[in-house]
């Protein structure tokens, strides 16, 4: 038996229209901490879903060998039975249940009568909590804990399942430094107890701190696996970004004109906790024909800024000024923002962008129905024509505009969202993660559309987690961290290293 606890060989996973993983191979040695790095959308999460049985055996190609035996998981409980536990980025805890109830959810401690033995449940929960360094009462409801402690409860839950291989997906993304350090120490401590961990992370300093080996994935392919002594941030970034950066983005010759939009001292607080500042004195501007990128980590306040600006759709106690062509405007409601020529395409198409049970036509017209009104009635033939023209000009792949948007691929859905906003005839478009979950070919098309809009003299703000994308399409980049703008770089000076440094710059304490 080899020293590897896990080998995934030649894993290929295709979704309709997208090859998410292509011949990925990864080997994890027993007792190590193995980091997996890659951009958003590189295929890390898909790989972990294949491993944990979320995508059942048969829905992918390739072999998974766990503890020397080829396994075929049908679902999550199969993989958990073997001791593989995955902790997702969005924690899967039930807020109104107690710590103990959450730890033993679907794994309840019962007495011989088949009823739950609460004394034993709480006692065992206390023992598990001690192992992760928590001293809270196991009967405390989860919602009373901070995110850091919730993360530890998740790990305690994993320990209760006799975990052998612990997978952590971006475990520190939502944590502050203190909690992050504590969590990383805990992972090292568990390693001492013989638990192997796979950690998915963007944070290179963390990886350097705890990982024994690092595998980099890009565009669904393994790029390389390096051992601890070979790991350097530069090498990881180079692997993540790839060398053929130029070919992935269409040429864009900026013709920058007058200032279209200027935001001054924009501040927004958390919608529930109005003492917490989420967007902190953000000032920025966009000029006609310009593509401005906003770079920031998840949770940095990018989307919160955009949504609070767009009709106060997020947050409370919002303050700041907005100027359009030098004249102050208000954007207190979405309708007002649209009237003032602002459009915002959300990062989450399915939840916030589209009516999936309606057809392409009605989605495109949704924000501009008044334009189609004749004598109080919607001119539906005109609507059809408008939508059909967009279908052709945006290359939406559908036989006609009566197809429901729920049936389209991610790239085509995004084109519908863009069509909707272009039809509202804005001067400034804020595009939040415009290529999330879209395959490479469609990404190129989206970039082409963005360039075309800029060439027409519109101002574009692109928010993206994919740094190479921002560097590839923007004319100027703002970096945002902890709700503040930490820097502004013209594209000539924006190297990945420079932007990453600004993105991770912390508030002086």
């Amino acid at each position: 038996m080899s020293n590897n606890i896990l080998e995934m060989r030649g894993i290929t996973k295709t979704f309709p229209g997208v090859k998410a993983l292509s011949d990925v191979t990864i080997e994890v040695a027993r007792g190590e901490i193995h980091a997996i790095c890659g951009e958003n959308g590189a295929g890390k999460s898909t790989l972990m879903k294949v491993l944990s049985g979320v995508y059942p055996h048969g829905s992918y190609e390739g072999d998974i060998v766990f503890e020397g035996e080829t396994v075929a998981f049908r679902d999550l409980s199969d993989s958990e039975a073997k001791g593989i536990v995955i902790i997702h980025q969005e924690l899967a805890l039930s807020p109104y249940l107690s710590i103990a109830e959450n730890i033993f959810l679907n794994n309840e401690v019962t007495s011989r009568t088949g009823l739950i033995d609460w004394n034993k449940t709480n006692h065992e929960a206390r023992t598990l909590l001690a192992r992760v360094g928590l001293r809270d009462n196991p009967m405390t409801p989860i919602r009373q804990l901070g995110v850091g402690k919730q993360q530890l409860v998740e790990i305690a839950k994993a320990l209760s399942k006799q975990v052998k291989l612990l997978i952590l997906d971006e475990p520190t993304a939502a944590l502050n430094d203190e909690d992050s350090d504590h969590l990383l120490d805990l992972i090292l401590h568990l390693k001492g107890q013989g638990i192997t961990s796979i950690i998915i992370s963007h944070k290179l300093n963390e990886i350097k701190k705890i990982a024994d080996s690092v595998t980099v994935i890009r565009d669904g392919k393994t790029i390389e696996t390096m051992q601890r002594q070979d790991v350097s941030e530069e090498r990881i970034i180079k692997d993540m970004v790839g060398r053929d950066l130029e070919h992935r983005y269409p040429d864009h010759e900026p013709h920058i004109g007058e200032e279209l939009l200027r935001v001054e001292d924009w501040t927004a607080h958390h919608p529930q906790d109005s003492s917490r500042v989420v967007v902190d004195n953000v000032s920025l501007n966009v000029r006609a024909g310009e593509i401005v990128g906003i770079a920031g980590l998840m949770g940095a306040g990018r989307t919160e800024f955009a949504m609070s600006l767009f009709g106060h759709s997020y947050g409370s106690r919002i303050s700041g000024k907005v100027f359009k062509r030098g004249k102050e405007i208000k954007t207190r409601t979405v309708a007002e923002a649209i009237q003032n020529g602002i459009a915002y395409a959300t990062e989450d198409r399915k939840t916030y962008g589209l009516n999936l049970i309606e057809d392409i036509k009605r989605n495109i017209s949704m924000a501009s129905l008044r334009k189609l009104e004749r004598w109080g009635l919607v001119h539906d033939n005109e609507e059809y024509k408008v939508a059909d023209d967009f279908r052709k000009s945006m290359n939406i792949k559908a036989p006609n505009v009566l197809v429901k948007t729920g049936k389209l691929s991610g790239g085509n859905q995004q084109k519908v969202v863009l069509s909707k906003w272009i039809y509202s005839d804005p001067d400034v478009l804020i595009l939040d993660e415009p290529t999330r979950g879209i395959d490479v070919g469609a990404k190129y098309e989206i970039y082409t559309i963005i360039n075309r809009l800029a060439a027409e003299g519109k101002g574009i703000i692109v928010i993206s987690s994919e740094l190479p994308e921002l560097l590839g399409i923007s004319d100027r980049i703002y970096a945002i961290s902890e709700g503040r703008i930490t820097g502004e770089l013209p594209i000539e000076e924006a190297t990945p290293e420079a932007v990453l440094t600004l993105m991770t710059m912390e508030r002086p304490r």
Partner: protein
Amino acid sequence: MSEPTTPTPTESQAVGGNVNPADNKFTAWLSHVLADLGKNGIFIALIAVVVLFSFTTNGILLRPQNISNLIVQNGYILVLAIGMVMVIIAGHIDLSVGSVAAFVGACSGVFAVHWGLPWWLSIALSLLIGALVGVWQGFWIAFVGIPAFIVTLAGMLIFRGLALVVLGNANIGSFPAEYRALGNGFLTNVFGEFEIDPLTLAIGGLAIVLLVIQQLRSRRGRVKYGQEVEPAAWFIVKLVLVSAAIAFFAYSLASYKGIPVTLIVLAALVLIYGIVMSRTVFGRHIYAIGGNRHAAELSGIKTRRVDFWLFVNMGTLAALAGLIFTARLNLAGPKAGDGFELEAISAAFIGGAAVQGGVGTIGGAIIGGLIIGVLNNGMSIMGIGIEWQQAVKGLVLLLAVAFDVYNKRRSGRS
């Protein structure tokens, strides 16, 4: 809505160079017919129920008098179904409509009988009270953000209670004749007495002519804008079938007492609300909100305002239903409107509305209401007891929605 997957004529010419054109045409024809049948499954279900009960009742179901009764007996449920399907499309529900109908009926009794106000003023005031009830419920739902289920459950109790308060432990009866006409009046003998009422026939004929003109215009408009239209033959077949149905319906009414006033009210409502839902910005916003509230909000739709007006509208329609019911019985009583909400909700769901919202049509809800009506009526004629009628109606509701869910899952996979 169907998704025509058949190639347009130009595309099929471009692709199918060696395909027998006649063959191609026939398959296109067939797929259109099938798509239409799938789309109008609920309509076919109505026809099936009618055919079934015509046999089991030895044809009594389709006798002129019974057809007239069908409309008059179900008028108030159909009025409620119109408002209800709109509420359901927006993703809400209204459990209070039965109580509101009873409350408004009682109020109208006070106006028209106790106070002796003119019939038109009594009706106007009653509708206003319905609208105010809607303002009350709409306020809590749209602006305070309490789920409609809770607000209207409370409303169900509140307005039933208020109805009893207004009635003061007694029935109110003997309404003026003009008021009563709303429930059991007929538009008849305007041109003197005939065996078969000529006015009814004329209106039926006019309805057919208008329908044909409207359909032709709509088809021509689509052609002009380069959209796909169904094959001409199928278009004509459908028009002829629908026209024949209208003609039969008009003839039946003409050979009984003429056109019921309830039907006139109902026809006007169906026409107006049908246009509101399919062609106005307000109607589109209702569908958008039901389909994805977040997306609607982020598209600049004022979702709270739409919710509010929906309930004002529902309250007004509930008031109208209460008036029609009271007028028909010539009595405002404490049991009025009992269970109306369930029949109206059933009608909307049988008619294809989706529980999650975003889907449904006025026409569907009306047909759903008619299916319930025919079931009630047919089973009553057959002498089936009320206990079995209840059970059968429940089963029909369950199967209708199950069929819908199954259909959606299948189309979702393809």
